[in-house]
Protein backbone atom coordinates (compact mmCIF):
# COMPACT_ATOMS: atom_id res chain seq x y z
CA UNK A 1 0.00 0.00 0.00
CA UNK A 2 1.21 3.49 -0.77
CA UNK A 3 1.63 5.82 2.20
CA UNK A 4 2.45 9.47 2.84
CA UNK A 5 5.46 9.40 5.15
CA UNK A 6 6.35 13.10 5.35
CA UNK A 7 5.45 16.62 4.33
CA UNK A 8 7.86 19.34 3.34
CA UNK A 9 7.28 22.98 2.55
CA UNK A 10 9.57 25.54 1.02
CA UNK A 11 9.59 28.86 -0.78
CA UNK A 12 10.29 28.55 -4.50
CA UNK A 13 11.96 31.88 -5.28
CA UNK A 14 13.16 31.99 -8.94
CA UNK A 15 16.34 33.87 -7.97
CA UNK A 16 17.39 30.83 -5.90
CA UNK A 17 17.26 28.71 -9.04
CA UNK A 18 19.25 31.33 -10.93
CA UNK A 19 21.85 31.54 -8.14
CA UNK A 20 22.29 27.76 -8.23
CA UNK A 21 22.40 27.55 -12.02
CA UNK A 22 24.97 30.37 -12.22
CA UNK A 23 27.22 28.83 -9.54
CA UNK A 24 26.64 31.53 -6.91
CA UNK A 25 25.78 29.23 -3.98
CA UNK A 26 28.95 30.18 -2.09
CA UNK A 27 28.45 33.95 -2.46
CA UNK A 28 27.95 35.74 0.86
CA UNK A 29 24.40 36.65 -0.15
CA UNK A 30 23.31 33.11 -1.08
CA UNK A 31 25.38 30.89 1.21
CA UNK A 32 22.99 31.05 4.21
CA UNK A 33 20.02 30.28 1.96
CA UNK A 34 21.51 27.07 0.62
CA UNK A 35 22.94 26.09 4.02
CA UNK A 36 19.36 26.14 5.30
CA UNK A 37 18.64 23.09 3.16
CA UNK A 38 21.61 20.94 4.22
CA UNK A 39 19.44 19.22 6.82
CA UNK A 40 16.72 18.32 4.30
CA UNK A 41 19.31 17.15 1.77
CA UNK A 42 20.76 14.63 4.24
CA UNK A 43 17.31 13.66 5.56
CA UNK A 44 15.84 12.93 2.14
CA UNK A 45 18.74 10.60 1.34
CA UNK A 46 17.71 8.43 4.30
CA UNK A 47 14.00 8.73 3.60
CA UNK A 48 14.33 7.67 -0.05
CA UNK A 49 10.87 8.69 -1.21
CA UNK A 50 9.63 7.01 -4.38
CA UNK A 51 7.23 9.79 -5.31
CA UNK A 52 6.81 13.43 -4.38
CA UNK A 53 3.38 15.02 -4.82
CA UNK A 54 4.56 18.55 -5.45
CA UNK A 55 2.05 21.35 -4.88
CA UNK A 56 3.10 24.58 -6.58
CA UNK A 57 1.76 27.33 -8.78
CA UNK A 58 2.48 28.16 -12.36
CA UNK A 59 3.63 31.78 -12.94
CA UNK A 60 2.27 32.52 -16.40
CA UNK A 61 4.45 29.78 -17.89
CA UNK A 62 2.20 26.82 -18.75
CA UNK A 63 -1.08 28.64 -18.11
CA UNK A 64 -1.84 32.11 -19.47
CA UNK A 65 -5.15 33.91 -18.93
CA UNK A 66 -6.68 31.64 -21.58
CA UNK A 67 -7.13 28.83 -19.11
CA UNK A 68 -6.96 29.11 -15.32
CA UNK A 69 -7.53 25.80 -13.52
CA UNK A 70 -7.96 26.14 -9.76
CA UNK A 71 -6.46 22.69 -9.13
CA UNK A 72 -4.63 20.79 -11.88
CA UNK A 73 -2.89 17.43 -11.58
CA UNK A 74 -0.07 16.42 -13.92
CA UNK A 75 -0.66 12.88 -15.18
CA UNK A 76 2.02 12.82 -17.91
CA UNK A 77 5.04 10.53 -18.16
CA UNK A 78 7.32 13.56 -17.91
CA UNK A 79 7.35 17.34 -17.60
CA UNK A 80 9.93 19.62 -19.22
CA UNK A 81 11.39 22.66 -17.46
CA UNK A 82 9.68 25.76 -18.88
CA UNK A 83 11.37 28.59 -20.78
CA UNK A 84 10.53 31.53 -18.54
CA UNK A 85 12.11 34.09 -20.82
CA UNK A 86 15.80 33.26 -20.34
CA UNK A 87 15.66 29.71 -21.73
CA UNK A 88 14.74 26.67 -19.59
CA UNK A 89 16.65 26.03 -16.34
CA UNK A 90 19.50 23.54 -16.88
CA UNK A 91 17.86 20.86 -14.74
CA UNK A 92 16.74 17.32 -15.57
CA UNK A 93 13.36 16.58 -17.10
CA UNK A 94 10.87 15.80 -14.34
CA UNK A 95 9.59 12.23 -14.47
CA UNK A 96 5.96 11.75 -13.53
CA UNK A 97 4.16 8.78 -12.00
CA UNK A 98 1.12 8.42 -14.30
CA UNK A 99 -0.29 5.36 -12.46
CA UNK A 100 -0.49 7.09 -9.10
CA UNK A 101 -1.38 10.47 -10.65
CA UNK A 102 -4.37 9.03 -12.53
CA UNK A 103 -5.39 7.14 -9.43
CA UNK A 104 -5.31 10.37 -7.39
CA UNK A 105 -7.22 12.21 -10.15
CA UNK A 106 -9.95 9.56 -10.25
CA UNK A 107 -10.14 9.18 -6.50
CA UNK A 108 -10.28 12.91 -5.71
CA UNK A 109 -12.84 13.64 -8.46
CA UNK A 110 -15.13 10.90 -7.14
CA UNK A 111 -14.43 12.38 -3.70
CA UNK A 112 -16.02 15.59 -5.12
CA UNK A 113 -12.87 17.60 -5.94
CA UNK A 114 -13.11 18.75 -9.55
CA UNK A 115 -9.49 18.36 -10.59
CA UNK A 116 -8.23 19.40 -14.02
CA UNK A 117 -6.26 16.56 -15.61
CA UNK A 118 -3.14 17.71 -17.46
CA UNK A 119 -1.34 15.43 -19.89
CA UNK A 120 1.16 17.92 -21.27
CA UNK A 121 2.66 20.72 -19.22
CA UNK A 122 5.98 22.47 -18.83
CA UNK A 123 6.93 23.15 -15.23
CA UNK A 124 8.44 26.44 -14.09
CA UNK A 125 10.58 27.55 -11.13
CA UNK A 126 7.65 26.92 -8.79
CA UNK A 127 8.26 23.20 -9.21
CA UNK A 128 11.94 22.94 -10.12
CA UNK A 129 13.42 25.26 -7.46
CA UNK A 130 12.13 23.09 -4.56
CA UNK A 131 13.57 20.00 -6.27
CA UNK A 132 16.92 21.77 -6.66
CA UNK A 133 16.94 22.91 -3.03
CA UNK A 134 16.32 19.42 -1.67
CA UNK A 135 18.15 17.24 -4.20
CA UNK A 136 20.87 19.65 -5.35
CA UNK A 137 22.43 19.57 -8.79
CA UNK A 138 21.88 16.10 -10.20
CA UNK A 139 21.84 14.44 -13.61
CA UNK A 140 18.50 12.81 -12.86
CA UNK A 141 15.96 13.60 -10.15
CA UNK A 142 15.95 10.69 -7.67
CA UNK A 143 12.14 10.68 -7.39
CA UNK A 144 9.04 10.62 -9.55
CA UNK A 145 6.99 13.77 -9.24
CA UNK A 146 3.25 14.37 -9.44
CA UNK A 147 2.72 18.10 -10.03
CA UNK A 148 -0.37 19.68 -8.49
CA UNK A 149 -0.70 23.19 -9.88
CA UNK A 150 -2.88 25.63 -7.91
CA UNK A 151 -4.15 28.97 -9.16
CA UNK A 152 -2.90 31.72 -6.86
CA UNK A 153 -2.44 34.34 -9.61
CA UNK A 154 -6.01 35.20 -10.58
CA UNK A 155 -8.15 36.25 -7.63
CA UNK A 156 -9.75 34.34 -6.00
CA UNK A 157 -7.45 31.43 -5.30
CA UNK A 158 -8.98 28.48 -3.44
CA UNK A 159 -9.54 29.05 0.28
CA UNK A 160 -7.13 27.63 2.81
CA UNK A 161 -9.86 25.35 4.08
CA UNK A 162 -10.52 23.99 0.59
CA UNK A 163 -6.80 23.37 0.20
CA UNK A 164 -6.68 21.49 3.51
CA UNK A 165 -9.64 19.33 2.45
CA UNK A 166 -8.02 18.58 -0.91
CA UNK A 167 -4.95 17.47 1.03
CA UNK A 168 -7.13 15.09 3.04
CA UNK A 169 -8.64 13.72 -0.18
CA UNK A 170 -5.16 13.24 -1.68
CA UNK A 171 -4.13 11.30 1.43
CA UNK A 172 -7.20 9.04 1.08
CA UNK A 173 -6.31 8.49 -2.57
CA UNK A 174 -2.71 7.58 -1.79
CA UNK A 175 -3.76 5.15 0.95
CA UNK A 176 -6.00 3.32 -1.49
CA UNK A 177 -3.25 2.82 -4.08
CA UNK A 178 -2.24 -0.86 -4.00
CA UNK A 179 1.45 -0.53 -4.86
CA UNK A 180 3.91 -0.22 -1.98
CA UNK A 181 5.21 3.33 -2.39
CA UNK A 182 6.91 5.81 -0.08
CA UNK A 183 5.20 9.10 -0.92
CA UNK A 184 5.99 12.60 0.28
CA UNK A 185 3.85 15.67 -0.23
CA UNK A 186 5.46 19.09 -0.63
CA UNK A 187 3.81 22.48 -0.39
CA UNK A 188 5.69 25.36 -1.99
CA UNK A 189 5.65 29.14 -2.43
CA UNK A 190 5.65 31.98 0.09
CA UNK A 191 6.56 33.04 2.61
CA UNK A 192 5.77 36.75 2.98
CA UNK A 193 6.57 38.71 -0.16
CA UNK A 194 5.14 41.30 -2.48
CA UNK A 195 6.51 41.72 -5.98
CA UNK A 196 4.32 44.54 -7.24
CA UNK A 197 3.50 48.21 -6.69
CA UNK A 198 4.79 50.72 -4.15
CA UNK A 199 4.41 48.16 -1.31
CA UNK A 200 6.85 45.73 -2.98
CA UNK A 201 9.46 44.33 -0.64
CA UNK A 202 7.04 43.71 2.21
CA UNK A 203 8.26 41.08 4.67
CA UNK A 204 6.44 40.01 7.83
CA UNK A 205 8.63 37.84 10.01
CA UNK A 206 6.05 37.71 12.82
CA UNK A 207 3.33 36.47 10.50
CA UNK A 208 5.65 33.90 8.92
CA UNK A 209 6.84 32.59 12.28
CA UNK A 210 3.26 32.26 13.52
CA UNK A 211 2.31 30.46 10.30
CA UNK A 212 5.15 27.96 10.74
CA UNK A 213 4.15 27.44 14.39
CA UNK A 214 0.49 26.90 13.59
CA UNK A 215 1.16 24.19 11.00
CA UNK A 216 1.57 21.85 13.96
CA UNK A 217 0.18 23.80 16.93
CA UNK A 218 -3.08 25.14 15.47
CA UNK A 219 -3.80 24.11 11.87
CA UNK A 220 -7.49 24.91 12.43
CA UNK A 221 -6.59 28.59 12.70
CA UNK A 222 -4.76 28.42 9.36
CA UNK A 223 -7.72 26.70 7.72
CA UNK A 224 -9.93 29.59 8.80
CA UNK A 225 -7.60 32.39 7.69
CA UNK A 226 -9.16 34.58 4.98
CA UNK A 227 -7.42 35.68 1.79
CA UNK A 228 -7.54 39.31 2.88
CA UNK A 229 -5.43 38.51 5.93
CA UNK A 230 -2.75 36.86 3.78
CA UNK A 231 -2.82 39.86 1.43
CA UNK A 232 -2.58 42.47 4.15
CA UNK A 233 -0.10 40.66 6.38
CA UNK A 234 2.12 38.66 4.06
CA UNK A 235 2.01 40.70 0.84
CA UNK A 236 0.11 40.17 -2.38
CA UNK A 237 2.28 37.18 -3.32
CA UNK A 238 2.25 35.77 0.22
CA UNK A 239 -1.14 34.32 -0.74
CA UNK A 240 0.91 31.42 -2.18
CA UNK A 241 0.97 30.10 1.39
CA UNK A 242 -2.52 28.61 0.94
CA UNK A 243 -0.74 25.88 -1.03
CA UNK A 244 1.08 24.76 2.11
CA UNK A 245 -2.30 23.79 3.53
CA UNK A 246 -2.73 21.06 0.89
CA UNK A 247 0.45 19.52 2.28
CA UNK A 248 -0.73 20.06 5.87
CA UNK A 249 -4.18 18.61 5.15
CA UNK A 250 -2.63 15.49 3.64
CA UNK A 251 -0.72 14.91 6.89
CA UNK A 252 -3.77 15.61 9.04
CA UNK A 253 -3.84 16.76 12.63
CA UNK A 254 -1.07 15.93 15.04
CA UNK A 255 1.81 16.31 12.60
CA UNK A 256 5.21 16.79 14.19
CA UNK A 257 7.83 19.30 13.18
CA UNK A 258 11.19 17.72 12.33
CA UNK A 259 12.99 20.78 11.06
CA UNK A 260 12.53 24.41 10.08
CA UNK A 261 14.51 27.18 8.46
CA UNK A 262 13.72 30.86 7.96
CA UNK A 263 15.80 33.49 6.24
CA UNK A 264 15.34 37.02 4.87
CA UNK A 265 15.90 37.81 2.07
CA UNK A 266 16.19 35.88 -1.15
CA UNK A 267 15.74 38.65 -3.69
CA UNK A 268 12.27 40.04 -2.73
CA UNK A 269 11.15 37.16 -0.54
CA UNK A 270 11.26 35.62 2.92
CA UNK A 271 12.49 32.03 2.60
CA UNK A 272 10.62 29.56 4.80
CA UNK A 273 11.11 25.81 4.97
CA UNK A 274 9.64 23.16 7.25
CA UNK A 275 9.65 19.36 7.40
CA UNK A 276 6.77 17.52 9.03
CA UNK A 277 5.94 13.94 9.96
CA UNK A 278 2.33 12.77 10.10
CA UNK A 279 1.30 11.31 13.45
CA UNK A 280 0.57 7.74 12.25
CA UNK A 281 4.07 6.84 11.04
Amino acid at each position, binding site marked *: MARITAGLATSHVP*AIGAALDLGKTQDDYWKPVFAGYDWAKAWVKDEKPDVVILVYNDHASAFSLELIPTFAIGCAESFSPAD*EGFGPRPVPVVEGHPDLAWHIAQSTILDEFDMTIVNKMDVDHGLTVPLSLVFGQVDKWPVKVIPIAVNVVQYPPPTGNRCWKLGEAIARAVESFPEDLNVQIWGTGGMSHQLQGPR*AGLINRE*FDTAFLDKLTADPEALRAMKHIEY*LRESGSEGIELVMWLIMAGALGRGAQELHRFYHV*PASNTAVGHIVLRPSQT
Partner: protein
Amino acid sequence: MSEPEDLLDIPGTTVFTAAQSRRGFHLNQFCMSLMKAESREAFKADERAYLDRWPMTDEQKQAVLDRDYNRMLGLGGNIYFLAKIFATDGKSFQYAASLMTGMSQEDYVAMMIAGGRSPDGLRSIREGN
Protein backbone atom coordinates in the same frame (compact mmCIF):
# COMPACT_ATOMS: atom_id res chain seq x y z
CA MET B 1 -19.71 43.26 -11.38
CA SER B 2 -18.81 44.29 -7.85
CA GLU B 3 -15.36 43.95 -6.37
CA PRO B 4 -14.85 42.89 -2.77
CA GLU B 5 -14.10 46.27 -1.14
CA ASP B 6 -11.34 44.96 1.10
CA LEU B 7 -9.24 44.10 -1.94
CA LEU B 8 -9.10 47.77 -2.87
CA ASP B 9 -8.11 48.78 0.66
CA ILE B 10 -4.48 47.64 0.69
CA PRO B 11 -1.99 50.49 0.27
CA GLY B 12 0.30 50.32 -2.77
CA THR B 13 -1.19 47.04 -3.95
CA THR B 14 -3.26 46.02 -6.96
CA VAL B 15 -5.01 42.70 -6.40
CA PHE B 16 -5.53 40.83 -9.67
CA THR B 17 -9.31 40.70 -9.47
CA ALA B 18 -11.80 39.74 -12.17
CA ALA B 19 -12.14 43.42 -13.17
CA GLN B 20 -8.37 43.81 -13.48
CA SER B 21 -8.10 40.57 -15.41
CA ARG B 22 -10.74 41.70 -17.91
CA ARG B 23 -9.16 45.14 -18.26
CA GLY B 24 -5.72 43.66 -18.82
CA PHE B 25 -6.45 40.57 -20.89
CA HIS B 26 -4.76 41.72 -24.10
CA LEU B 27 -1.92 43.46 -22.27
CA ASN B 28 -1.17 40.22 -20.43
CA GLN B 29 -1.52 38.11 -23.55
CA PHE B 30 0.95 40.41 -25.30
CA CYS B 31 3.34 39.81 -22.39
CA MET B 32 2.81 36.07 -22.71
CA SER B 33 3.86 36.22 -26.38
CA LEU B 34 7.32 37.34 -25.21
CA MET B 35 7.95 33.79 -23.98
CA LYS B 36 9.08 32.99 -27.54
CA ALA B 37 12.55 34.12 -28.62
CA GLU B 38 11.35 35.22 -32.08
CA SER B 39 8.62 37.38 -30.51
CA ARG B 40 11.17 39.00 -28.23
CA GLU B 41 13.27 39.83 -31.30
CA ALA B 42 10.29 41.29 -33.16
CA PHE B 43 9.33 43.39 -30.14
CA LYS B 44 12.86 44.70 -29.67
CA ALA B 45 13.19 45.53 -33.38
CA ASP B 46 10.10 47.80 -33.35
CA GLU B 47 8.22 48.00 -30.08
CA ARG B 48 5.41 50.20 -31.33
CA ALA B 49 4.74 48.05 -34.42
CA TYR B 50 4.75 44.88 -32.31
CA LEU B 51 2.34 46.40 -29.77
CA ASP B 52 0.01 47.45 -32.62
CA ARG B 53 -0.55 43.77 -33.39
CA TRP B 54 -2.48 43.52 -30.10
CA PRO B 55 -5.94 44.98 -29.41
CA MET B 56 -4.65 46.92 -26.41
CA THR B 57 -5.65 50.47 -25.48
CA ASP B 58 -3.29 53.31 -26.41
CA GLU B 59 -2.80 53.94 -22.71
CA GLN B 60 -1.65 50.36 -22.20
CA LYS B 61 0.71 50.54 -25.16
CA GLN B 62 2.19 53.82 -23.91
CA ALA B 63 2.69 52.37 -20.43
CA VAL B 64 4.62 49.47 -21.99
CA LEU B 65 6.76 51.81 -24.11
CA ASP B 66 7.45 53.90 -20.98
CA ARG B 67 8.14 50.77 -18.89
CA ASP B 68 5.79 52.29 -16.33
CA TYR B 69 5.01 49.15 -14.35
CA ASN B 70 2.74 50.80 -11.79
CA ARG B 71 0.69 52.21 -14.66
CA MET B 72 0.56 48.77 -16.30
CA LEU B 73 -0.66 47.26 -13.00
CA GLY B 74 -3.40 49.87 -12.88
CA LEU B 75 -4.42 49.06 -16.45
CA GLY B 76 -4.88 45.37 -15.71
CA GLY B 77 -1.33 44.02 -15.99
CA ASN B 78 -0.42 41.14 -13.71
CA ILE B 79 3.09 41.12 -12.33
CA TYR B 80 3.92 37.56 -13.47
CA PHE B 81 2.94 38.54 -17.01
CA LEU B 82 4.68 41.93 -16.85
CA ALA B 83 7.79 40.00 -15.80
CA LYS B 84 8.11 38.87 -19.43
CA ILE B 85 8.72 42.51 -20.41
CA PHE B 86 11.55 43.14 -17.98
CA ALA B 87 12.97 39.69 -18.70
CA THR B 88 13.07 40.72 -22.38
CA ASP B 89 14.95 43.85 -21.25
CA GLY B 90 17.39 41.61 -19.36
CA LYS B 91 16.25 43.02 -16.00
CA SER B 92 15.61 41.16 -12.74
CA PHE B 93 12.56 41.02 -10.50
CA GLN B 94 14.54 42.99 -7.95
CA TYR B 95 15.15 45.74 -10.50
CA ALA B 96 11.44 45.90 -11.36
CA ALA B 97 10.39 45.86 -7.71
CA SER B 98 12.71 48.73 -6.85
CA LEU B 99 11.39 50.70 -9.84
CA MET B 100 7.77 50.24 -8.68
CA THR B 101 8.62 51.41 -5.17
CA GLY B 102 10.38 54.52 -6.48
CA MET B 103 13.62 53.51 -4.74
CA SER B 104 17.04 53.10 -6.27
CA GLN B 105 17.93 49.44 -6.70
CA GLU B 106 20.77 49.93 -4.22
CA ASP B 107 18.45 51.29 -1.52
CA TYR B 108 15.87 48.62 -2.25
CA VAL B 109 18.40 45.79 -1.93
CA ALA B 110 19.69 47.31 1.30
CA MET B 111 16.14 47.46 2.66
CA MET B 112 15.62 43.79 1.84
CA ILE B 113 18.89 42.76 3.50
CA ALA B 114 17.82 44.73 6.57
CA GLY B 115 14.66 42.60 6.81
CA GLY B 116 12.36 44.05 4.16
CA ARG B 117 9.53 46.55 4.27
CA SER B 118 7.52 46.41 7.50
CA PRO B 119 3.76 45.91 7.09
CA ASP B 120 3.14 48.47 9.85
CA GLY B 121 1.00 51.28 8.47
CA LEU B 122 0.57 49.44 5.16
CA ARG B 123 -2.17 46.95 6.00
CA SER B 124 -5.26 49.05 5.33
CA ILE B 125 -5.97 52.47 3.82
CA ARG B 126 -9.19 52.67 5.83
CA GLU B 127 -7.65 51.75 9.17
CA GLY B 128 -4.32 53.43 8.53
CA ASN B 129 -2.55 50.53 10.24
